[in-house]
């Protein structure tokens, strides 16, 4: 890639915690991000609508609640229809309804053939979301492979139990 940043048009990134500039409105942040991209794909504002964000976009971000900021954060990551999505603890700070909406959107993105890399420590929500698992423990890769292989290797069906089994083995 050699310092050419244009490949990043294909990446949507959702940081764990979005701290947007306090004095700007959501719309201004979106305009900046749009400005930084030369490509003119039709934007995907589906999440803005399903999260009910549209009427929050003209308020200064400092007046928004943590949950609303997180919704904005998620909606922005999906906005430019990226081929690759990097989501860092996407459901942290979201209410159950919003979390459900986001998970449905992630699944649909997967079915559309996009690659999604997501990190989470809420293992129970991953069963329905992931195909492959990389399990990191204290900076080391403890397991890497498909969810099916993880299930076979540990004899556990639920991801949470399977990971717990891996950790117990590591202790012994």
């Amino acid at each position, binding site marked *: 890639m050699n*310092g050419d*940043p*244009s*490949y*990043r*048009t294909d*990446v949507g*990134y959702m*940081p764990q*915690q*979005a*701290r*947007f*500039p*306090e*004095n*700007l409105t959501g719309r*201004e*942040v979106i305009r*900046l*991000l749009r*400005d*930084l*991209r*030369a490509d003119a794909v039709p934007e995907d504002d589906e999440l803005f609508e399903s999260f009910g964000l549209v009427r929050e976009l003209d308020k*200064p971000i400092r007046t928004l609640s943590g949950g609303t900021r997180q919704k904005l954060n998620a909606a922005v990551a999906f906005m430019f229809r990226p081929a690759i999505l*990097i989501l860092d603890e996407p459901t942290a700070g979201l209410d159950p309804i919003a979390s459900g909406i986001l998970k449905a959107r992630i699944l649909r993105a997967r079915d559309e053939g996009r690659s999604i890399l997501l990190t989470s420590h809420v293992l129970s929500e991953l069963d329905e979301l992931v195909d492959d698992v990389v399990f990191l423990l204290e900076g080391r890769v403890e397991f890497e492979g498909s969810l099916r292989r993880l299930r076979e290797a540990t004899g556990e069906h639920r991801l949470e139990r399977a990971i717990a089994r891996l950790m117990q083995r590591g202790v012994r």
Partner: protein
Amino acid sequence: MTATKVLRYELQDLRRSRWVFGYGLLLLVLTDSLLRFGGGGPRALVSLLNVVLVLVPLVSILFGTMYLYGARDFIELLLAQPIRRSELFAGLYAGLVLPLALAFVFGVGLPFAWGGAGDGSLARPLATLLSVGVLLTLAFTAIAFLISLLFDDRARGFGLALLLWLAATALYDAALVFVAVAWADYPLELPLLGLTLLNPVDLGRVLLLLQLDSAALLGYTGAVFERFFGSALGVAVSAAALLAWCALPLGLAGRRFRRKDF
């Protein structure tokens, strides 16, 4: 240029910042009252100089570090966008320096404009004061960038920022006086001249005092200073030294920004 897009958003953000507005207003009130009650003309300018030399570095370095630490998460989000790091850096720096410099120029300049600088004899010193203030803003904001990029821990960053400000505005002078007293029997003019060039705040002070014919205030080295700084060469060298104080930290910060693993 993508840098201007970053610049524009930052201006939008800072235009609504109470800090920048308050800074400009404080300078405005201070300048206005010094002009009204400070004994007029050159004397007011000297008092103002002392305020500027303390306040501008303090606000630039503290507000700069504060802003950068606060914007850290957003910078990371911007780094994930298709923009070069060098352009992002340029935009961020310009976007911070511009509002601060404007607040300074208007805060100090406006009272002179409406108060009437009298016969215009103050025009040159005032221009020097404004340039020195802007250059100090550039320098100390660049230092603030460097600090916040070098230290991820903001408590340490703020501590260092305060320490550097204290060193430049007070400790350095104290050390100079100590040197001057301790080696009073030796010809110290040239070493002191060199040491003055190393501190941006001192540079600004000397440059302005010499224009006000207050070289006597500088003590026994005043003559040497006047001969050096009063000449065209002296002004050129000291302006270059001030510019180096802007360019060097900025260059280091830019380098750090391009390589940093955020």
